């Protein structure tokens, strides 16, 4: 990210990013078939998806090459909205406890 618009990446950069993202997808599949516990699987897959999304935002959507003010005007608001949605998890865990017992 820059304070002013910078020059755009090259085709080589795009191809490197494409290969890196395909590698992340391969890791996601490998993690799944290592059969971890559901909690560990969720944490691993979600972390990898966030890394992939950050790369897509930075390089595919060129956010890295736009003015910093664009990033700060857009991303924190969405992240805050998504964090606010996390209030549903205690109730979901209450439901599963009701089914299984304490």
């Amino acid at each position, binding site marked *: 990210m820059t304070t002013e618009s910078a020059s755009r990446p090259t085709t080589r950069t795009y191809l490197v990013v494409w290969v890196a993202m*395909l590698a992340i997808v391969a890791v996601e*599949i490998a993690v799944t078939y290592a059969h971890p516990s559901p909690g560990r699987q969720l944490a691993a897959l979600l972390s990898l998806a966030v890394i992939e999304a950050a790369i897509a935002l930075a390089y595919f959507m060129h956010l890295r090459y736009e003015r910093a*003010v664009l990033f700060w005007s857009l991303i924190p608001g969405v992240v805050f909205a*998504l964090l606010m949605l996390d209030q549903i998890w205690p109730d979901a865990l209450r439901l599963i406890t009701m089914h299984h017992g304490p």
Partner: protein
Amino acid sequence: MSQAALTLEPSPFGIQSKKLAMWLFIMADAATFGAILFGYGYLRVGTPDWSRPFALTPTIVNAAIMTFVLLSSSVTMLLAVAAAQAGRTASGVRWLGVTALLGTLFAGLHLREWFAMFHEGWSVSHNPLNGPVQFGATFFGITGLHLLHVITGVVAILVIAAGFRRGRFTAAHVETTGLYWHFVDLVWMFVFPMVYLMNAR
């Protein structure tokens, strides 16, 4: 009206208004997909006998191929934008065509999978494994909303490609459409692990 009133203030973001409008739409759409994925997560966590019906073949392999196709279409869209910005109209139109083709292939693979599931008895209100019916509702709801975005994107790309070829649209239109297409790709980066891999047997 005075000359001073006619002078436009430069954008603090350094981008055209159409691109800023697309960014604002993408942020709103990200919140929509976030909400629907959180809703799915709530049901997934709160339901003890949640179905995990997806075998490696054909479902996970098919979804991995779809991921490859969509990621590749993002690269071809980037090449279309680069060509358009360099003034290479024919090349830009060609890459837009390849992107639309890959988007159509993704939609075709998706619909083939859907119809195979319908054939097995899956629907938004029926689970052939006698598990919770919410599985079908969330699966078809999330993937259906994403598929709608893909189909809309393919139509938009074709319209922009036709207009760009005739000189009616500019490289900025191609770039703005590209932003939307990359967002469709970005959403799939969450749908694939959360909806497919988390439900793999």
